[in-house]
């Protein structure tokens, strides 16, 4: 839970920096690397380790930057990120019983898959530039596959980094004691 203005400011600056990085740096990389959806991964990560409120603020900031700089209609990224977070929150609350490493992997990959379906569907319906139905395009499925792999790998790295820094996600086991 964010408690003061400074924390919000730091969050806004960090997400803005990531949005610029995604827009210019990641997009200029060669093909397997340019499929990294850095912002979505970070948003899901924030949702997983902090809460929905902080993730919503982050989605608003990230979406705003991308909407200002890109050529999709204004509000496209803000709403897509937010709907993805809603889905992730729903999965977290209704399907997953804990916040384990496996839960993060499931939520990362499923949100990435949903993001691609949703973004392509919205563009197909509302944009005149996309005339071919995305589900029949090889390129669409390649993008989904690449992004899912990247999400999986980055979830792996981020979870272990978080485990090093924080004590919140340390595993705890019930010790089996002998009464003999």
């Amino acid at each position, binding site marked *: 839970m964010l408690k003061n203005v400074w924390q919000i400011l730091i969050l806004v600056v960090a997400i803005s920096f990531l949005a610029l990085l995604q*827009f*210019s740096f990641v997009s200029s990389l*060669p093909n397997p690397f340019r*499929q990294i959806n850095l912002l979505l991964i970070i948003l899901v990560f924030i949702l997983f380790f902090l809460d929905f409120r902080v993730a919503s603020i982050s989605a608003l900031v990230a979406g705003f930057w991308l909407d200002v700089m*890109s050529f*999709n209609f204004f*509000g496209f990224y803000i709403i897509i990120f*937010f709907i993805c977070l809603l889905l992730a929150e729903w999965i977290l609350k209704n399907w997953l019983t804990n916040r384990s490493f496996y839960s993060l992997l499931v939520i990362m990959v499923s949100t990435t898959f949903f993001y691609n379906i949703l973004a*392509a569907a919205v563009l197909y319906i509302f944009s005149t530039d996309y005339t071919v139905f995305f589900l029949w395009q090889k390129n669409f499925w390649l993008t989904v596959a690449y992004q899912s792999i990247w999400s999986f790998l980055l979830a792996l790295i981020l979870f272990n980094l978080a485990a090093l820094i924080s004590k919140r996600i340390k595993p705890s086991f019930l010790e089996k004691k002998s009464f003999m």
Partner: protein
Amino acid sequence: MKIIKKNNPILIFLVIFGLLIFLHGIGVSRPIENFISNVFKPLNSHFYSWGNSFNHSYQDRATQASLSAQVEALTKEVALLTVANSQEKELMAENAKLRSQLNFLAVNNFKAVAAEVISRESLTEGTGEGQDLIINKGTGDGLLLGQAAVNEEGLIIGKIIETKETSAKICLTTSRDCKLAAAIQNSTKTQGITDGDLGLTIKMNYIPQLEKIAVGDTVITSGLGDKIPRGLVIGKIIEVRNESNEVWQDATIEPLVNLDNLTVVTIIIL
């Protein structure tokens, strides 16, 4: 009414989102958006250049194996080009005389705006071919839809398909639906429309069977589009599909420039 409870993050988000859309729709937030775009343009250019440098080294490594074969082919091509060059010099001298005689306008009587590439829209790549470039100049700099974008050697790389005040989107010649009015430099000056093919090559369809086209012919812009001048090189024909029972023949064109490594482009303003 559970959903309207105080501090509901979904409700707060939707209110802010609605407000942003409203302010954008009525144009109140546009100056702020343009200001943000302008302020962060240099940072965007730097980020894009860094990514592009990585792209260069990655591609260099991948192509090292085929370099020796390319050197051999290029040596042969240099010999042929030397001969062609000497012939061309003679033609240029003759051409200069004819131009002055006919009082032709200067060849480069158009203005040009140089722009830096700041992004390729990769987040919606699955929906298209992910080839479009975003540059840091827009309508505020005199750019309009349909204007040609060329690289530093003057080869056409695409055209403007969308504009904002501070930026513009360019489709590459190899992108699907990036159509250009073109002409083949053959004996009959065949004209047609080129279109991108899978983000790799360019195709030219519906060429009448009677037209004589061959592999190696150069394809240029025909100048029929009102914002693109004639004579900008699109590429060279690498394949001709010609069936005797068909009315039309098709050609596959290869661009003469690597479209993955563009960092600076020039927009031609007629």
